[in-house]
């Protein structure tokens, strides 16, 4: 299958790239900061509640997800739209590991959706996210991030 044509390509840094799907702006920035100080380039997406239509629901796909090395999902999966995002991520980018913050109670549908995903407990702090990312990706040596 031909590679999806996604333009523009938003990632500019060669360092490991982590996309954080987090609807809460402050929480997203806190996770981003922790990841940045651990050597990761980050992208923070508020999920389907951001500007306009979520690109995952269109034919073009999501450029940041396409270029990510790992995706952290904290969208709250009580809502169908959040599950749809997770479903699309799994279907479109099967090679990108997903680290999903899961609620304490999981229904059968979500259980099936989460099969094969790495899980984080609900309410995980930035340090826990970093630890989980590092366990999946490995520690990153710091260097000059400017090289694109």
């Amino acid at each position: 299958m031909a590679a999806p044509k996604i333009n523009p390509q938003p990632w500019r840094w060669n360092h490991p790239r982590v996309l954080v799907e987090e609807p809460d702006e402050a929480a997203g920035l806190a996770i981003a900061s922790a990841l940045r100080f651990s050597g990761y380039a980050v992208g923070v997406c508020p999920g389907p509640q951001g500007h306009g239509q979520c690109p995952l629901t269109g034919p073009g796909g999501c450029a940041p997800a396409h270029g990510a090395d790992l995706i952290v999902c904290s969208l709250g999966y009580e809502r169908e739209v959040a599950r749809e995002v997770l479903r699309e991520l799994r279907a479109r980018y099967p090679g990108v590991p997903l680290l999903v913050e899961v609620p304490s109670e999981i229904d059968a549908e979500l259980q099936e959706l989460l099969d094969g995903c790495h899980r984080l407990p609900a309410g995980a702090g930035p340090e826990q996210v970093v630890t989980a990312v590092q366990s999946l990706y490995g520690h990153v040596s710091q260097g000059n991030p400017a090289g694109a």
Partner: protein
Amino acid sequence: MSRRGIPQVPSRFHRGSETFRFLLLVMVALIPIVLVAVLGPTWLALVVLGFGICALAARAVQLRMRRLRDPELSVKMAPPHLGEAAERRVLVVANDTLSETSLLGEVRRLASVPHTHVLLLVPALISPGERLTGAGEDALAQARVRLSRALGRLGADRDIKGEVSAAEGLVAVEDTFASFVPDEVLVSTRWERAAGGLDPRLAGLVRERFAVPVRHLVFEFGSVAQEPDQDAEARYQREFGDAAAWRFGLRALAGAGILAAVVLSAVALITVAERNQATAVSQRVAAQALPTPADATGPPAKVIDVSVIPEGKKGPEGAMHDDFTVSEFHVTVGRPLTLRIDNTDTQPHSISSPEAHVYIIAQPGTHGYTLLVDKPGKFEWHCEFLCDPWAMEHVGYMRGFITATPS
């Protein structure tokens, strides 16, 4: 733009290929205008020119709307932290507020925290016109002076560096993310955008695009720093985004409508002027053709008295309608017929027959006109000035016939 040393204003005309494309585009656009102006009527040249201007304006509006619209992807990005974990890198973006003592105090406070590096970024305030032409040395010089004075007041004992950028505010910040890699951004502006000042909306744009904490501090002359509340930020936000883009688009559409009205009015005026000129020429030709007193051998010129009377004639339905008291004219081809028209109305009326090349505009009052037809036939004439709509459509009122017989 050079990131090191003296920045230059990035202009598309600095590249030969861009300049060549621009000149080619101008020439291609000018060719039809010049051709029509030389070969065609004036009104057509104006219409073509109007189309050209509209196309340029539409492109400018499109570019402006693209800049105003929300980013396609609402994803904030940031590179990994640069340096040791204990280090902090703070980017301060300012220009006209660099003279504020309270801002310099805030910069000193930031720089006094151990392992903190501060970069003062001063985007030069270059207008779009200067940017297009590559000018803007004044803005760059002003930014350099402001930065130099600020660094002088801050002293050399702290880790504070400065940089002037020729790029626009957001692009300048973006460049800095590739070189300085800030962990925090502080944008300093006035409450409202002033001439020679940074746009207060810049903070919101930076916040929208970069996954680092962004503070917006507002400094008014001589006052302490203030952070805009949510209402102020929301107001700044409203000036960007899809809604703002559409508002701008609608305003541009209204402007285009006004411009189109002006162009059409100009075309109408020119057309009427050209017709009047044609009539005048026709009348001059007729006057030359009329027998002079010395030329007494020919028959005396015939004069027809005509009146134009508003609501002067009863129609079949009983209502009164505008009329020419004479609506049937009989002439000999090439022989002028003098009409003494008493237009009792306050507006002009006309005897217009494009087929017979007759355009007589009867001004209010009594004046003499010449009716001259250059080919035989029966031609319908009508009044082309908006008056009584019914009468304009009916023969015997504001419409009639000219019958020209061969000499």
